[in-house]
């Protein structure tokens, strides 16, 4: 089986077109009502209409703002607290138990309370997103900073390295693969957090739009939102993956994983 890449792409495209055509035909032939399952042509129409009227763009910007601000705050806080816990025994002793406790709680369950505290605006969404993306990055930062190879630490100590040198030249680099993995999880969680918080109560955003479409039985519209959301998730994780690959060019385990993903 020696199939070239263009050949594979063409076959994939044909399969997609056939599936869409089958879907379209099944809906039309059986007179399935639009509010149960829309045909691909209905979804496409809703998609074009949504962007032409500018409604989608507005809500998209709201959700993206929530995701990026929340994620940024969560990332910075997680890195700072992770450093403090990994480097300071006292902080670890008194703070780490709470973190473990908090970690095992589903953070989305906090969204209703956060909306009460911070209102229907964008703030409650940013807090939810920050909280939900904070933990995977925090835990990975702590584990990563402790992951430095003992032989490498001994080598540096035998050369007379200070604690700070071991940290700067070894621990930080050793932690990087873990931190990047945490960010990869965190960015996807961030989107989830934003949508759930908007479900609870919001003035704008794709999650809020999705829910209001539910009340008008605009299923075609909902399909378009789901499509936009997965596109956002895909772009964000590819972006993180791209930056991660550049940062971790030396990590051979990462290369093999990327190849496995690609092949």
């Amino acid at each position, binding site marked *: 089986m020696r199939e070239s890449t263009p050949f594979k792409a063409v076959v994939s495209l044909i399969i997609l077109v056939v599936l869409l055509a089958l879907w379209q035909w099944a809906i039309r032939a059986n007179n399935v009502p639009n509010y149960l399952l829309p045909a691909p042509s209905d979804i496409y129409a809703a998609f074009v209409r949504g962007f032409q009227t500018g409604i989608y763009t507005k809500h998209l910007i709201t959700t993206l703002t929530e995701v990026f601000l929340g994620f940024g705050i969560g990332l910075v806080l997680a890195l700072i607290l992770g450093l403090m816990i990994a480097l300071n025994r006292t902080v670890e002793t008194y703070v780490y138990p709470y973190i473990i406790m908090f970690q095992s709680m589903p953070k989305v369950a906090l969204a209703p309370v956060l909306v009460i505290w911070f209102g229907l605006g964008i703030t409650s969404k940013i807090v939810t997103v920050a909280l939900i993306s904070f933990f995977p990055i925090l835990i990975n930062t702590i584990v990563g900073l402790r992951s430095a190879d003992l032989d490498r630490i*001994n080598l*540096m100590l*035998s050369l007379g390295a200070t604690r700070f040198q071991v940290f700067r030249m070894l621990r930080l680099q050793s932690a990087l693969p873990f931190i990047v993995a945490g960010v990869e999880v965190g960015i996807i969680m961030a989107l989830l957090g934003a949508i759930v918080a908007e479900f609870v109560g919001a003035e704008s955003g794709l999650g809020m739009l999705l829910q209001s479409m539910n009340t008008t039985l605009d299923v075609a519209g909902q399909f378009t939102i789901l499509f936009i959301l997965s596109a956002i998730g895909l772009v964000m994780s590819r972006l993180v993956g791209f930056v991660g690959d550049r940062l971790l060019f*030396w990590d051979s385990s990462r290369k093999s994983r990327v190849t496995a993903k690609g092949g």
Partner: protein
Amino acid sequence: MTVQALRAVDAGRVEDAAAEAIGIRNLSRRFGAGRSPIVALDNISLSIGEGEFVSIVGPSGCGKTTLLKILAGLDRPSEGQATLRGTPIAGPRKDIGIVFQSPVLFPWRTVLDNVLLPVDVQRLGRSACMARAHALIDMVGLNGFADRYPSELSGGMQQRVGLARALVHEPAMLLMDEPFGALDALTRENMNLELQRIWMETRRTVVFITHSISEAIFLGDRVLVMTPRPGRVQIELKIDLPRPRDLSVISSPEFGAYANQIRSILNAKGAVD
């Protein structure tokens, strides 16, 4: 000038021909307290001359690595003391080079940057040491690989980087903990020849720990045979084989006699399973 004196000059100091590099006096190391501590090293005394190549051979658990860690300042003796050029080893010091069993390279650093690690740690100034680093990379046979990353190198090449790194800050002694133990037999023989050549060029004091009897004899001016439970030096053998030694020396009758002597000591002590 005698060979010994030449070595002393090469090591950066003009000293007596019989200058002592490493002194170990009544050194013991026990792990765990109470009635039955594990005795890793039991009352060891020995003296290693400036520029001497000493091999330490023994089975696992005979305390070789503990001894090496004490010499590196990474562990403290329970009793007795070790000295380097007359001063007690009380903690990590800057004039020691170590080569471990695994290369222990930093994968995010190029070959050159790995070799320069001691320079960075000790703030010796990269520009001042650049020529020396490149010369060492050439000496270990890696010319043209300075800008490669460790993942691009074979196991033997990585170990060569480790050797160059251990020499870049001109250490007073080189500690090697089974440095070729993870290499295949052919690469290992080749590395033994290379190490002998490098040692003859640099004349550092070397403490070389190994499982392999023939490697210990091939490389050493002297072989210390250690046995476990408790860790003791059973015998010191002076190896009287002319240098440079080539691999054919291994099949000589003298070499065989040394090997038999070491093996019989280890067998008599029940140290070989």
